[in-house]
């Protein structure tokens, strides 16, 4: 048993659980062997993970670092500004990600066939939503600032 642990790096239960998981996943994958689009599915499967880890994550981290750095420069402000920039940006990013097809009008033909509508309104609606998120955040900032000015620093 100690020998197994030294060679493998964990107990036999660990290996059993993993093998069972791989077996089920492999069984699901082999059902696709005769499917002409199997390769396409595999590419998408790997691509979504790679794009998230190596594109999306570095992008939003870099954006966040820029926001923190720039708002750090106004550090003497009575109320830190960073989260009032960050939150509407996150809301905009999240909704862009989830509702992207409509916003960039991708799949217009199937959308029209399925619903009877084109995708024209989505971009405008999304921009309005972003404006509302930014506006509410700015308003809250002003209120907090006014409150701090009235009570805090005297």
């Amino acid at each position, binding site marked *: 048993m100690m020998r197994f642990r030294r060679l493998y790096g964990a107990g036999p239960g660990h290996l059993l*659980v*993993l093998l069972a998981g791989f077996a*089920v996943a492999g069984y*699901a994958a082999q059902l696709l062997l005769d499917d002409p689009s199997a390769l396409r599915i595999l590419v998408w499967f790997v691509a979504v993970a790679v794009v998230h880890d190596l594109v999306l*994550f570095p992008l939003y981290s870099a954006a966040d670092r820029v926001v*923190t750095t720039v708002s750090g420069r106004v550090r003497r402000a009575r109320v830190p500004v960073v989260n009032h920039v960050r939150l509407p940006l996150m809301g905009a990013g999240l909704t862009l990600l989830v509702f992207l*097809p409509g916003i960039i009008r991708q799949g217009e033909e199937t959308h029209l066939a399925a619903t009877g509508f084109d995708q024209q309104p989505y971009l405008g609606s999304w921009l309005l939503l972003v404006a509302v998120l930014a506006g509410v955040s700015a308003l809250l900032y002003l209120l907090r600032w006014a409150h701090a000015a009235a009570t805090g620093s005297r």
Partner: protein
Amino acid sequence: MTETDTAPPVGGDLRAGPRFRSPIRGPWLTAVLGVVLLVGLPVVAVTGLLDYVAYGAGQQIPAEVGLLRPPDFVFPLDPPWLFRLTQGVHVGLGLVLIPVVLAKLWSVLPALFASPPVRSAAHLLERLSLLLLVGSILFEIVTGVLNIQYDYVFGFSFYTAHYLGAWVFMAAFAVHVVLKLPSAARALRSRSLRTELRTPLSRTRPEEGGGDLVADRPAAPTVSRRGALAVVGGGSLLIGALTVGQTVEPLRPLAFLLPRGRVPDGPPGNDFPVNRTAAAAGIDPSAVDPGGWRLELTGGPAPVLLDRARLLAGGPELPLHTATLPLACVEGWSAVRTWTGVRLRDLAAVAGVAAPTAAIVTSFDPGGFGRAALPGARVLHPDSMLALHVEGHDLSLDHGFPARIITPSTPGVQCTKWVRAIDFRTT
């Protein structure tokens, strides 16, 4: 670790330092997000499988799934809103959990770049299982999100990929839960949630102990842990608010970024979402003109032809029946309406079939969903009908004029529109 150690480089250093510097990242935060997903994702998986069951034996897509088949039972017809509930929860909860999944991935990302990359055979296998886990959850989210917006850019069968991807996910998820439950439980005990919820930014400190997740040189906190959790919850609330209108009528305008936030203006009574327009289905208006249209009933001693006037005439043989039933689509939207028409079981009697065990409905729609097989229980249910009116008005052409099937707790695609014939079977 003292206060000075955690002090950030002045002015937010962009050049040097480790890549991961968040002071709130750590096993506790990861475990809290993990618990939310541990509860939520199985619900999404199970409701997805129930939706597959609801399509009924012989009509499930994909058909060839070997052993990866949920138990084959006839999806319950009562309560009539059961399918509306399962598909609404599957799509709605799936969308609402997206911010939690993204936050969870953010919280564990340093582990991806841990060094050394492989510590042992066990570590290598576990990392491979994590690729399956992350790949499959993102694959399920991406294909699902694209499907409900009718964007088929991926170019493969949504049904097949989403169904088999779900099994890869369920396998990888189960492995992850078994392997990580002990350390997650330990992490959860390391801090008190109640205390965290009372800890403001000014008293927020990095988690104790090392590990891959806790930053070596954390930056100054800009948000407390409770703040971070509120941000994730707020993201879920935002997505939820933008989605719920797909299925809750008065809130429909809130789904303004989704196809099912919009409904046709009319004609009267027909202001609910259309799935597949008459134009897209290639319906020839002359074929469904009430002057020439006849419903053909087969399966009895001889075919029976009924025109629309006869169907609407009522009488003891074919009384008009009215019921309030949801029309619910597997893509996550639904609408509850009051339908009037003739019961399928009465039509079977008129056709001369006393105890049908199934009915095959065919439509003027030549597409894949222009034919549906209804199991016997669905044919005989007292609210199952061939609907002619909705909310007291004629069905619009896009909603299936001259007649469509409406049955309780049924996937929308099996509520066949533009019905041409019904074949009642007894075997």
